[in-house]
């Protein structure tokens, strides 16, 4: 008559062959080396990206400040020759506002362009 197997017996008998330990550890060490290489590469990329963002931010602040000062003080210098903006009497600040908006739009375009160039460089490197 077959003896009833208890739960403890069932698991005590469970000793599957897991292969050579040293060989397995050698395999794992190689995988970890590859993982570390990938991790370092990603970290270097992140650092490069952050440095570039800081540079873009600072240059944006500086050029933005210069542009705004110019617009507020001597807006007509920024207009191409032959073009004038008539300021309506009800809204004398209109030329300055329009130039400020145009300046913001151009800044956004430049930021987007810089970002696109940076992303395409990352894709090429990958």
């Amino acid at each position, binding site marked *: 008559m077959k003896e*009833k*197997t*208890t*739960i*403890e017996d*069932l*698991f005590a*008998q*469970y000793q*599957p*062959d*897991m*292969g050579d*330990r040293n060989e*397995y*550890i050698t395999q*794992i*060490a190689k*995988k*970890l*080396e590859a*993982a*570390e290489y990938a*991790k370092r590469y990603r970290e270097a990329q992140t650092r490069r990206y952050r440095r570039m963002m800081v540079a873009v931010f600072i240059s944006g602040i500086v050029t933005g400040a210069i542009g705004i000062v110019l617009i507020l003080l001597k807006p007509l210098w920024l207009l191409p020759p032959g073009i004038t903006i008539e300021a309506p009497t009800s809204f004398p600040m209109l030329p300055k506002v329009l130039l400020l908006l145009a300046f913001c739009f151009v800044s956004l375009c430049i930021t987007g362009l810089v970002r696109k160039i940076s992303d395409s460089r990352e894709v090429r490197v990958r």
Partner: protein
Amino acid sequence: MTRQQFIALVSEEQESLRRFLLALCEGDRMEAEDIAQEAMVKAYIAMERFVERAKFATWFFKIAYNTFLDHQRAGWNRRTDLDAAEEMPGGPRADDAFQYQELYEAISTLPLKEKSAILLFYVSGYSVKEIAKITGSSQLAVKQQLSRGRSKLRQILER
């Protein structure tokens, strides 16, 4: 922690972990090995977050268990084509699935949480508190899972 220290710690736990995963995958050695290796890489990348006072084995098993759950959610990518089966080597390990068929069949009837608790308790030798940390359940829930799991296994074994 350096890579060598990490490898030394993994070396102590890898057999127990792989045995647990093999049982959890019901004898599917390929899947268990995939999960084990993925878990080791994840643990290595996350080792800076490992708090030294925490027990390495529990932390490591938790990562492996979560990796197993991710595989389950993604749907196991089982190789079922005959060409792949023909290429697979035979040998003593191929007989393991047959040798432990009774165990795999018994645990396959358990829901995942009960199966995990039972295997962590009986195969890996963890306490209720440790199992709760690994599976993210409360200790009370783990006790209930163990109780239910044991009861179901007894019914199967008594048949």
